[in-house]
């Protein structure tokens, strides 16, 4: 018996590593080609919790974009959480992620939001300054992640699980 399922939408600019994060987190049922055709790829993952029932997450990996169109907005319907993904080596991607969060808030005012600052393995090339992240952490859960090494990925999803099924 598992809790949920909860719909989690992944939002972020092109090339920030959303799909790689999902691939690190789950074993995909569908091909990535859906991202370029339909604009979304859905996977599910049952997250184990120590001493408690696992939580099932349904991950909607929405194709990279810096603004929500009508299709993307449709994909957000009924989502319980948003996993915003930004590329630490591109500061503009962080701005896009925050813009997307603002647009999504209009549709999902109560959804849990978590920010994954991806490509932590390329930290030496990061454009996003630590003070910026410190500021962000005051209003948003922020995790440094690396789809390449897997660092922080489980933590980000664990935070989502904790927020959805405390």
């Amino acid at each position, binding site marked *: 018996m598992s809790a949920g*399922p*909860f*719909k989690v939408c992944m939002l972020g600019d092109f090339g920030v590593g959303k799909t790689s994060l999902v691939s690190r987190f789950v074993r995909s*049922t*569908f091909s990535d080609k*859906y991202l370029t055709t*339909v*604009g*979304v*790829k*859905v*996977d*599910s993952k049952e997250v184990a919790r120590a001493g408690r029932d696992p939580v*099932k997450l*349904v991950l*909607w990996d929405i194709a990279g974009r810096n603004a929500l169109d*009508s*299709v993307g907005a*449709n*994909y957000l*319907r*009924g*989502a*319980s959480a948003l996993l915003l993904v930004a590329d630490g080596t591109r500061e503009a991607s962080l701005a896009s992620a925050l813009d997307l969060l603002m647009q999504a808030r209009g549709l999902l005012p109560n959804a849990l939001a978590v920010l994954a600052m991806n490509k932590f393995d390329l930290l030496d090339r990061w454009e996003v300054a630590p003070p910026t992240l410190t500021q962000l952490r005051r209003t948003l859960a922020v995790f440094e992640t690396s789809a390449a090494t897997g660092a922080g990925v489980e933590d980000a999803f664990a935070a989502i699980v904790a927020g959805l099924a405390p």
Partner: protein
Amino acid sequence: MAGEGEKAIAAATGADGSAVPAAADVAAASPRDDYERLRELLFGDERRELAAARERIAELERAQRDLPRRLPDAAVAALHENRDNPRVADALAAPVAQALGAAVHDNRQSIIDALFPIIGPMIRRAIAEALRGLVDNLNGAIESSFTPRGLKWRVEAWRAGVPYAQVVLRHRLAYGIDHVFLVERDSGLVLRHVAAPGAAPLDADAIAGMLTALGDFVGDSVGGDRGALDSAQVGDSLVWVEHGPQANLACFVHGVPPPQLRGLLEQRLEDVHARILALPADAPLQTIGDDERVRELLDPVQMLREAGADGSTAAAPAQRKSFKPVLAVALLALIALGWFVVERWRWNARVAALRDTLAAQPGFVLGDIESRPWRSLVVHGLLDPDAPSPQALIEQADLGKANRRLGATGFVSADDRVVLRRAQRLLQAPAGVTLDARGGVLHIGGEAPQAWIDAAALRAPLIAGVARVESTVQVQIDPKRVARAALEHAIAELAARNVDFVREDEPVAGSDAAVEAIAADVRRAQAFAREAGVALQLRAAGSSDESGGGDINARVRALRARWLALALAARGIADVGEDDANANPDPTQRSARIHASIGGAR
């Protein structure tokens, strides 16, 4: 305003007290009482009317405040008590219509949610009634079809004891339900997933999510309200999606499902929504998946059974009972097929044997054999007129009652056997002649009359197929002719012999030797006559000299002829006649002799 008027009145009365009767009494009472009495005197009736009007207004206000609480009961009472009063309906028609219009305009989703469980059945019922007549006509059309497949299904329906149309549907609608998803409309999250026994496992959450995403994508692509993804098909796999206000029902089907299944899905989704409406207000939508009734509604096996595609229906045992007849029919068919194969093989073998026989037939070149098993056989080829006809061979072939015919075209064969037959026909060789043909050479042997030999020498080289003639034929000698020649010679010799007499029938001395010589010649002549196949006539004739009278000499000649005949008879030669005694064969001699002559063939 009234108060100010009253004050003005009071001021007026206070200023001119003489104008008031019984002024002492008035002065004794309090001013307020006076005022009240004055009001009563002046406005008593109006005040009472005013009070009544106020009470009425208050009552109306109370009724107005209580109206929301009392209205349902009042409406029910009004409808109940005034059922036949058209004014009630008239009075309600306008506000109800207006309220509905406003609700549809302002709160469309609520109206949809409320009507969804019932509007589907209403539409289906109307459509079902309209289609019933059409289906009956179709059923009649189907029943009147006599195609082989239709007849087969008819037999199956007769054996199973079910209507013919049901069998037709069962055959046409071979399908199965693999998965049933109840998906939350907005989020695409799975509310309930049921897989058919044996169906391949899948990630239901991901599938439902993608299905929802695809539906959104398609709906958004085709444009707004124009529709949603109702079905998708790949090969014989089909996804049907029924859309509801709260949840969608997706059904993964393989094969060719009947339209009834679609209707069933609609009905199930409506029933599910009825259950959703019955959920407690604080219950999350996802708990609908735990509802026992919803579990029953989404059971693929039950869906199949209700749609008439499940093999475990009541008709199935009847079919199993009828399995033996099917086996029997199959066995009979197998036997018939085996018999057919064997008979066909035998026919072909016999035709092949006939082909070999005909191919070996001299003077016949086999062209083709038109064979229609057990019905007819036509042999085509080239046939030399001198060759033996293959018709007899064809007739003798073991082909039952099949009609046989020989279609032959003439030609000249160089086959030695045919050349020999041709030579035999043209030369008409007599017995004793042997003919043989080998490699175009005609060999003629034996014996033959000279005339035939001469004719054959002319004809034989001209015979078709004869390149050269080798003749060793000998001229044939006829023993009869030889015997006849010998007979004639013996007769001549016999004619030269005689027995001399001294006088009368007294022979000269040594006549026995002469008689023996005559007898020996007669025997030899008789032997030649037998050999030649002719009759030999022997007559004894006497001769006399001219001395004496004629009568006496005739008697003497008769005596001498008789004497010789007797002498020969004594030596075993009978049947010797006597010549006329009046004739005198040799007047110079006194003798007797035998005249032999050849008669007809014996």
